[in-house]
């Protein structure tokens, strides 16, 4: 059993995933993609959908760009990357509009803004352009999940403290409110997200140091 675990932890795939989820998390370590993580983390369901949309885009843009990496002319490579990413983002946006209309309305411009998310461009440029399709795809997937995990974590605290709910279900009992407990309005505003993300960054750095 323990040898199996050691074998898994030595694979390239494991290292890629662990790196993106923890040692090099795009939000809490590299501090990328902050704009959308401030905007869509008021509720958990929007955060989850946003995380899925970004994971889809970053994984498949990595895959496609990696497949084409040997034939992309160097002088227009950024344009090619943006074109691939933009196409995937618009497809994701159209699918959300067709099947998850309410959530897509709440996410408003932020799905479209995945195009400008530094994580996606960053992975395309640094990983997909120089790696084979499979590792690039795994890297994209892992970075999407790394981004999503922080998003969901932040939105958990914001929704719980700001609205007394988790995934839209009330979890703070009415008795608490009757006794004078109040929702924390700050958590619903962007500065609340800033503080929570700051605490996440602090926590991760403190744990990595020890």
């Amino acid at each position, binding site marked *: 059993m323990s040898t199996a675990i050691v074998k898994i932890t030595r694979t390239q795939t494991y290292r890629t995933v662990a790196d993106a989820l923890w040692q090099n998390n795009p939000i809490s370590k590299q501090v990328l993609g902050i704009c959308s993580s401030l905007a869509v983390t008021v509720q958990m369901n929007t955060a989850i959908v946003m995380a899925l949309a970004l994971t889809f885009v970053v994984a498949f843009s990595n895959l496609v760009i990696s497949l084409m990496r040997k034939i992309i*002319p160097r002088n227009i490579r950024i*344009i*090619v990357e943006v074109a691939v990413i933009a*196409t995937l983002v618009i*497809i994701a946006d159209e699918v959300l509009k067709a*099947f998850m*209309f309410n959530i897509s309305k709440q996410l408003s411009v932020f799905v479209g803004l995945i195009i400008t998310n530094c994580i996606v461009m960053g992975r395309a440029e640094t990983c997909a352009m120089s790696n084979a399709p499979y590792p690039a795809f795994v890297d994209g997937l892992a970075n999407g999940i790394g981004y999503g995990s922080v998003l969901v974590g932040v939105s958990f605290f914001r929704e719980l403290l700001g609205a007394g709910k988790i995934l839209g279900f009330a979890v703070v009992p009415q008795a608490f409110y009757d006794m004078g407990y109040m929702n924390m309005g700050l958590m619903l505003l*962007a500065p609340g997200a800033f503080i929570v993300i700051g605490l996440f960054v602090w926590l991760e750095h403190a744990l990595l140091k020890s």
Partner: protein
Amino acid sequence: MSDGVKTILFATILCLVCSLLLTLASTGLNAFQQENARVDRQKNILQAVGVVAPGRTYPADEIKALYQSTIQCISVNAEGQVLSAEAAPQKTMPLYLYLQDEQVQAYIVPVDSRGLWGRIYGYLALDTDGSTVTGFSVYQHSETPGLGGEIENQWFQRNFVGKRIVDTAGDFVSIKIAKGAVKNMIRPDLQPNYVDGISGATMTGKFLTEGLQGILQTYEPVSVHFRTQGMLKLPENALVCQPQS
């Protein structure tokens, strides 16, 4: 093949493939999106008259059933007369009626206003006295989230409830969006004609004020009718309104 030609060829093929994918996604999903948008408009009409609560999600079938049973859409002409199906073809405006037990409780005018970044679409519901606003809702806009985008939020829309489109003398003045809070900025006798503005969204407020003024002016003959003669007379076979695009 020279590098330049290769680059152009690659870019052309990439563009073709991308546009093909986008066309497929757009046309393939269009029917679902249209249906969603239609239900969303119905929901906003119901929200303007307070049948459904804002900020809650309802199953599409429930919205459709509620809409079917409480809302009637008729056509009026520029003089505010309700048109019957036999009327000569002319320019018509849609008007929604909120009915309960066959009684008209409110009438709803569609809002199509200029905004800062694009058009603002919504509904404004007025009481049968022809002067009191009973609700306002927005279903589509492109204002900045957090600033002008606040027009889609409950706190802003609730402001409209109970406001009046006529002044104390009974003359039409429309409803305006104040710069800041009404109770600090506006003379007490004018307060019923103003709603609280959004800080950081002065332009959105300015354009929406102008838009509402224009729309209410267009529908003023209908409002005058409600104010002076009460309920509109509905012909037996009222001309069903043209669905909005």
